[in-house]
């Protein structure tokens, strides 16, 4: 049976820009960045959490035709592509302040929830990222 979630993916409109954002601003690290010829296989991960990688995939031919890719890009840019990422941190307020100082587009301030404190942001393309300081079990 399945052991763990290994890789999950989101669509990004530009992989260099995605690296600037996810590594340069959010502080993730590159897991692999390989030019396979037919595609650039680009994954990132949270430092210290090597078991879960995020594939940053550029929608386009030949994996999908240009017309479909246009629709996917439109959905991403409307925030409707479903590429949600949820991260856990120790201190939501401190992380919020740090990301604010790095110029990240924050969409919701840290808010007390039943499950902890969390806030929201968007990547440069429209994908939604949520960061939570979860309550101890």
């Amino acid at each position, binding site marked *: 049976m399945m052991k763990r979630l290994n890789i999950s993916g989101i669509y990004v*409109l530009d992989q260099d820009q995605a690296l600037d954002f996810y590594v340069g601003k959010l502080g993730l690290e590159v897991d692999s960045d390989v030019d396979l010829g037919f595609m650039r296989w680009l994954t990132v991960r949270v430092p210290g959490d090597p078991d879960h990688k995020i594939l940053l995939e550029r929608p386009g031919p030949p994996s999908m035709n240009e017309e479909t890719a*246009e*629709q996917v*890009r*439109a959905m*991403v*840019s*409307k*925030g409707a592509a479903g590429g949600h990422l*949820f991260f856990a941190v120790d201190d939501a307020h401190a992380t919020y302040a740090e990301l604010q100082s790095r110029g990240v*587009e924050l*969409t*919701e*301030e840290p*808010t007390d*929830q*039943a*499950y902890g404190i*969390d806030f*929201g942001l*968007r990547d*440069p*393309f*429209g994908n*939604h990222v*949520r960061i*939570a300081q979860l309550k101890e079990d």
Partner: protein
Amino acid sequence: MSRAAEETNRRLLRARDLMDRSYAEPLDLATLARVALVSESHFIRTFRDAFGETPHRYLQRRRVERAAWLLRSTDRSVTDICLDVGFTSLGTFCRVFRDIIGETPTQHRRRGPLGPVPSCFARAWMRPIG
């Protein structure tokens, strides 16, 4: 769809995010259009093309959604909640709430508390349509 259209979408999304975040404030078209980097008249049309409703309607539904959430999650009075979510008149609030939800704020409150879900999903999925 060109890269320019994607960039327009992205800026419109930024204006929509502002409504989701600052619904309690007296947001006007000029402010939202500035965030989207388009003229006011162009903003209304392009926003509707992208998201299927006018910015005004989007904001109204966000305010009603937040009010519905507060009614079911807190003990605050209907008047306080009306002001909390950015309406300035109780009469308008009650009328718009009933138009959109199909019942009065007090009737809606009786439905009781909502289940635990990240607030962004509650907001996205509970913003009323129709």
